[in-house]
């Protein structure tokens, strides 16, 4: 949006009060516009990051318990490639935009994409190692060396953003568990269940330090409840027959007669 349209005829009129006021405001205008333009550019980058990150998450959801290592690595590799592209093409730019700025001033623009990316990154990390990625490990990804076109820059990931991204991870893990159950894969959901339980109780140490976190905690709790309920169902159902037979059942042999009950 161009904002330079309002060139005023009043300037010429001489030194009346009105001209004085208008001149002051003309100055304000350029200040405001500069800020807004940077904000808009960051919003655009952030939006792109969001879309790409969502795609990565979507991709990672293809994982199923019991896949061959080759299959699993293929998925992880694909995710990794995409994350690298985001780093190079988006976050590097973002870091340059924020050089010499108070990054907090633009956090509202940056935040949505950043959090979504952290969600994707931690999801990837969980699938790869079954662990929670640490803030340090995250931070390592945000140091950019100079390249042909771009100068070097560093973007410091705020702890709050890291926590908010991790809070969103719970939703994806819940979905992962449910999808695997739906596909007849049960063990993963028990692991996810415990992971989320530990995560929730770790989060519970923070009080109302971060406003946004409160809302997300409710979501985390709900996600955990869903996984707990799913695990419960599996356990209750699973208990109807001895586990070694259950394994057969799940393996698809399906040769159990009614008398077992």
């Amino acid at each position, binding site marked *: 949006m161009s904002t330079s349209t309002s060139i005023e005829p009043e300037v010429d009129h001489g030194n009346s009060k009105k001209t004085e006021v208008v001149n002051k405001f003309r100055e304000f205008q350029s200040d405001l516009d500069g800020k807004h333009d940077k904000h808009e550019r960051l919003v655009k980058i952030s939006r792109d990051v969001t879309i790409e990150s969502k795609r990565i998450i979507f991709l990672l959801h293809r994982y199923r318990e019991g896949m061959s290592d080759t299959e699993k690595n293929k998925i992880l590799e694909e995710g990794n490639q995409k994350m690298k592209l985001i780093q190079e093409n988006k976050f590097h730019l973002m870091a340059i935009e924020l050089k010499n700025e108070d990054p907090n001033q633009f956090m509202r623009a940056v935040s949505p994409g950043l959090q979504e990316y952290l969600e994707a990154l931690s999801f990837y990390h969980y699938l790869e190692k079954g662990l929670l990625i640490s803030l340090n490990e995250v931070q390592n990804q945000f140091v950019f060396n100079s390249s042909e076109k771009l100068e070097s820059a560093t973007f410091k990931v705020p702890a709050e953003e890291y926590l908010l991204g991790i809070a969103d991870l719970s939703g994806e893990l819940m979905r992962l568990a449910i999808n695997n159950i739906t596909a007849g894969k049960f063990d993963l959901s028990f692991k996810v269940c415990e992971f989320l*339980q530990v995560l929730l*109780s*770790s989060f519970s140490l923070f*009080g109302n330090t971060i406003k946004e976190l409160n809302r997300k905690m409710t979501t985390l709790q709900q996600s955990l409840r869903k996984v*707990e*309920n799913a695990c419960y169902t599996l*356990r*209750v159902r699973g208990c109807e027959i001895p586990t070694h037979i259950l394994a057969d059942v799940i393996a698809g042999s399906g040769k159990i007669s009614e008398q077992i009950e």
Partner: protein
Amino acid sequence: MTETITETFTELHEFLAAEQQLREDIRFVVKDMEQTTREIQKVLQAIHQPQGLKKVPELCESARKLFEAVKDQTKNLSDKIPVNQYYKYHDHWKFVFQKLMFLAALIVFLESENLIDRSVAAELIGAKVNKEDGFHVDLEDFLMGLLQLASELSRLSVNAVIAGDYNKPLLISAFLSNLESGFRLLNLKNDALRKRFDALKYDLKKVEEVVYDLSIRGLKPKDTSVLTELTN
């Protein structure tokens, strides 16, 4: 005219400023208390984890140790409150006291499967039962704690099954059923309590469904004589 008004208000302003300062001080102590409470909660959250129910004694012990810290905080707090002004500032510690009552009741349930005594709960945080005796726990806050316990136990009945403990849900079901009968006796005027009591009905229903799932699969422990006794 202006002068009289200004005088009057200057005096009041000092008075209110002092009061404001007191509120700040209270908030400060309560914040500490909230932090300890969150730590206790974190400890006890572990009962929901796969190995949790097996570690109940250790968990309760850790929690009880943290309650010692609470006692000091309660002392700090009560030192600040002028005589007969408990209810002026009650809103500040109301919610943390409710949470503490809940946690105290949870410990007692986990240890003994009994409903906590009001006096035991008050003692655990270093407060009195009756206002006549000093800094006390408001009865409605104690009751709110019990209703929070109901939700926690409802969730526990699910996680107990996951952990393979089929007895716990039956105990919980009987406990909540008794609790519900108790609450029905009360003529609740307090809106928050009444709303929370509605939630208790759902908590109970949830546990009944767990017991149902177990019984329809023959997983309900045979010897239910204990339970029949429990609910009669």
